[in-house]
């Protein structure tokens, strides 16, 4: 589906299947989260359905274990690619003990995974952008070979925090990728009310760095574009803004009802371009996947989700005695 150029990295079938598996697992977990929300078992879910190709494409372009990630709340598929387990995700949904991002202090999907260089982020949007540039600055000062990628929604690029963060990376040519997952909405507010440019990639022009726009429904196209930017950053070529055009196939979150601001037809049209379906079709067409393998993956995904739910439902809540710390680092040492 991607026009393969000379410069493109050739992916093994194994890797392409791994990417598919990650997307599939993310989708199944995500769908299940909506179901248990409707069952009243969880209070909140924010979904990545429609963003999986962009996230998995980006994650696989990075050297996981070396590179750093400063994500945002829609990045379930990205996090799975970085090693978050389904069990850990569901512990977060339920606010249970052992939830690795925050010890269940934060809402679900507020990621952090120190073991995988995934930095904690908060709810106020765009605060993570300067953090990524700070990490980039530190990488450059130390002379390390890591690259940092930070993701965000297109609406959040309206924040001064985004502008200032990107500006630093441009000035100092830092090894940072600013991935903008553009789903055309910020809750209910459509892109034309956020910006006068037609693509977030254009924003890069105003800051003096490269900006590109990619079809984020296409996992392989995203992979190739992010890979090129990561290679560039790693070799001292500086930062890139990458807009990945995706679909938010669900309401903003479980608190939202999108019928007041977008039409059924719009949602139907998105479903006809489901990135998971498209990738599956591509893999089948290329002979990388067949129906038997697909059935097995589906079964495996279903089982993984089931197991995660069971595990997390039986897990205890955090101990109340733990709620009062660690406000300061010494609280950890004293604990």
């Amino acid at each position, binding site marked *: 589906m991607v026009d393969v150029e000379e410069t493109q990295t050739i992916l093994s079938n194994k890797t392409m299947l791994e990417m598919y598996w990650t997307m599939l697992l993310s989708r199944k977990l995500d769908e299940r989260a909506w179901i248990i929300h409707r069952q009243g078992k969880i209070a909140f879910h924010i979904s990545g359905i429609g963003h999986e190709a962009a996230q998995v494409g980006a994650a696989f372009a990075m050297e996981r274990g070396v590179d750093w990630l400063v994500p945002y709340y829609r990045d379930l598929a990205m996090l799975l690619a970085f090693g978050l387990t389904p069990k850990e995700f569901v512990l977060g949904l339920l606010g249970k003990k052992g939830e690795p991002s925050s010890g269940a202090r*934060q809402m679900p999907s507020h990621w952090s995974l120190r073991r995988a260089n995934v930095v904690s982020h*908060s709810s106020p949007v765009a605060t993570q952008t300067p953090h990524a540039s700070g990490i980039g600055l530190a990488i450059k000062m130390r002379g390390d070979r890591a690259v940092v990628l930070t993701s965000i929604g297109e609406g959040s690029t309206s924040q*001064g925090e985004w502008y200032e963060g990107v500006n630093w990376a441009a000035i100092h040519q830092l090894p940072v990728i600013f991935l903008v997952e553009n789903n055309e909405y910020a809750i*209910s*507010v459509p892109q034309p009310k956020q910006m006068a440019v037609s693509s977030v990639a254009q924003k890069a022009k105003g800051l003096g760095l490269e900006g590109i726009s990619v079809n984020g429904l296409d996992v392989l196209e995203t992979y190739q574009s992010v890979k090129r930017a990561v290679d560039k950053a790693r070799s001292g070529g500086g930062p890139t803004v990458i807009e990945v055009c995706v679909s938010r196939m669900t309401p903003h979150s479980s608190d939202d009802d999108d019928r007041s601001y977008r039409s059924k037809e719009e949602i139907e049209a998105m479903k006809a371009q489901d990135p998971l379906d498209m990738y599956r079709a591509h893999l089948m067409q290329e002979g990388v996947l067949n129906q038997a393998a697909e059935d097995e993956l589906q079964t495996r995904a279903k089982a993984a989700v089931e197991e995660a739910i069971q595990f997390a439902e039986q897990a205890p809540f955090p101990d109340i005695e733990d709620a009062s*710390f660690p406000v300061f680092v010494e609280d950890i040492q004293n604990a």
Partner: protein
Amino acid sequence: MPEVTLIEGIRQAMDEELARDENVFIVGEDVGPRGGVFRATEGLYEKYGGERVLDSPLAELSIVGVGIGAALYGLRPICEIQFADFIHPAFNQIVNEAARMCYRSNGEWQVPMVIRAPYGGGIGGGLYHSQSVEAFFAHVPGLKVVIPSNPYDAKGLLKSAIRDPNPVIYFEPKKGYRLIKGEIPEDEEVLVPIGAANVSRPGTDLTVIAYGMMHYYTLQAAQAAESKGIDVEVIDLRTITPIDKKTILASVQKTGKVLIVYEDNLTGGFGAEISAILAEDAFTYLDAPIRRLAGPDVPAAPYSHPLQNWFMLDPKKISDAIQELAEF
């Protein structure tokens, strides 16, 4: 009189003021077709159009900054900040600009504007959808800070705030949006003055001072205390700054004991100022230490249910503190 929810009182106030004064307009994230994430502006976009109920970019400092500019030109913006936790990017515009404009121009320029924001915990919002931030703004000369605790006051105070020629920060106890109900007359104009506290329950044994959601819980706690023979006077501050010193001093003069209840973190919360006023001006009337009951000094209520309950005050914790103070 029909019984309505607190958020309905807020909606009514905006509806009436939009109709009354063509200079009034609403600006914020998702306030338009979506009607606000809590539905405070529901139906207003349809009624008044997209110019007067304006979806902003996702950028709080400019929601406030653009609002200031419009106010300087003579309009009366109502800026909605989606959650109080997200007001911090606009801190500079509020503190350095809106609050100082009148004084710094020796009165030549004025900023008649309201900044509305839902605040407080108890809705599973975690560290960033639960914050109480009133103390920051109560510390800033030039701002008025208002927090209603029931539908009638919510409506009457918001209407007063919209008509006020100064910047008014209006915090809404989101946990009470639909939980707190009350009557609002349909046939009269509801206006509640800014700057006046309300003795919501007269009593003789001790005074409890609260506001917003904590006032709602305090009334329940006072009820519980009554069954133990403690006669509690409850004061609903309604306006945080300028604070109604007269009302609180008169009450403490009468009861000699005071408990200050606030949901925000204990240290440096607005209850500290209330306590300091009383420790200076009511000292000779006090029969007991001034007690503060407040949120613990961790960064807002955690998400997980048991942890959130640990953080949050409730009628039980308040009535326990009442009893302890009564026994002093």
